[in-house]
């Protein structure tokens, strides 16, 4: 069976090393936090100026001056730190974050990422911190459905949407398979309810196999 969004979030969480500094993008990647047990000591970074972000705030915990990058009220964990925006992005750009997890419209076979603008008429472009994260974190993990609503693949030979970053994606976690973007091409690491043969017929990207 393909993974549902929670199972996919749990699968991404499995690959985050204990003690890592991690940024989770807004939307689906936020769910990864629900699958990171406290005892592994992962420290969450939010680009609006905090390390040690805790879960979403509920009830009396809500503080309008403590929000995440999606403007949702959150909590702070013991050992948290606050800093201003230039410092926050220096952390990203300077290669200090171990992992970021981002959503995507498309990822190319060479790891180009498109996740900020569909270029559709009437759309209003909004990039936020996506371009900084894409080029800054040591490992960039994408979490997305493998196929768009119209059935078209989102792992493609070359992105047709405007790029967020060039050659920046390390891994692509999808509902049907996990892919590694390696220097010599795309490798399938794991499949969920499908086969590499079937993926080869549905994707226009050459796939090597490294299923563990």
């Amino acid at each position: 069976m393909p993974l549902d969004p929670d199972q996919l979030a749990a699968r991404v969480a499995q690959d985050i090393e204990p003690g890592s500094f991690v940024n989770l993008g807004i939307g689906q990647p936020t769910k990864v936090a629900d699958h990171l047990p406290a005892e592994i000591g992962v420290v969450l970074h939010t680009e609006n100026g905090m390390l040690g972000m805790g879960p979403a705030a509920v009830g009396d915990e809500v503080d309008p001056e403590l929000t995440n990058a999606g403007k949702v009220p959150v909590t702070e964990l013991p050992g948290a730190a606050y800093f201003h925006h230039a410092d926050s992005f220096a952390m990203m750009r300077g290669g200090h974050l171990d992992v970021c997890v981002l959503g995507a419209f498309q990822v190319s076979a060479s790891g180009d990422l498109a996740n900020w603008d569909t270029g559709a008429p009437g759309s209003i472009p909004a990039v936020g911190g996506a371009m900084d994260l894409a080029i800054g974190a040591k490992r960039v993990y994408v979490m997305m459905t493998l196929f768009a609503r119209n059935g078209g693949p989102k792992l493609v030979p070359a992105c047709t949407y405007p790029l967020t970053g060039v050659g920046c994606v390390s891994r692509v976690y999808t509902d049907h398979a996990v892919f590694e973007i390696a220097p010599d091409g795309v490798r399938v690491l794991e499949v969920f309810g499908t086969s590499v043969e079937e993926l080869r017929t549905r994707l226009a990207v050459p796939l090597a196999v490294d299923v563990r």
Partner: protein
Amino acid sequence: MSRAQIFASPDEAVSVVKNGDTVLVGGFGFAGMPFDLIDALIRHGAGDLTIVSNNAGNGDVGLAALLKAGRVRKILCSFPRQVDSYVFDDLYRRGEIELEVVPQGNLAERMRAAGAGIGAFYCPTGVGTPLAEGKETRTIDGRDYVLEYPIKGDVALISAHTADTMGNLVYRKTARNFGPVMATAATTTVVQVSSIVEAGRIDPEVVVTPSIYVDRVVQVEPRHYTVQGAR
């Protein structure tokens, strides 16, 4: 201007803004948004403004109210489109406001550069994307970079938690966001705070924005909003 001045009202504090100014406006969504300074700026009447802020307004208050009042010609921001950015969305679709989208880290670093006397800097963010088109690029040690120029403000309007009578500032939680960088990057920095204490009452070790960057301070009753429908 030398030592910071303390003003009795937001209206007096923002009187320095002129038509056509570039105004840096603090806040990330509502957190850190200087609501009282913006309301005073609307009453003050300056127009044809270029605004630099992370977002293009939320709901009907703060920056959104300034946009709605028709005072803004252009906005530089990283993330205009949000669940509650309907005031901006409408102006943009009617062609009544110019938009320059800047990656969030570049927005911060370009203001940091302005405040730190840096002429321009090479940055890896945005290489190979539409936001780097037409910009000078350079390969340094095997990696590609884009040349980015400073963003300097005529005025910065920011919010902090506490000021002392010298103008030293401390912030609260993620409401800090762009405040410290904007304070350095404007000719005149105007700050609204929840409380003003005597010099010496803020531990010098915890001052975030030293008084040299602060020109005008006004104390206001804190107002808070949360983004409705934020994801």
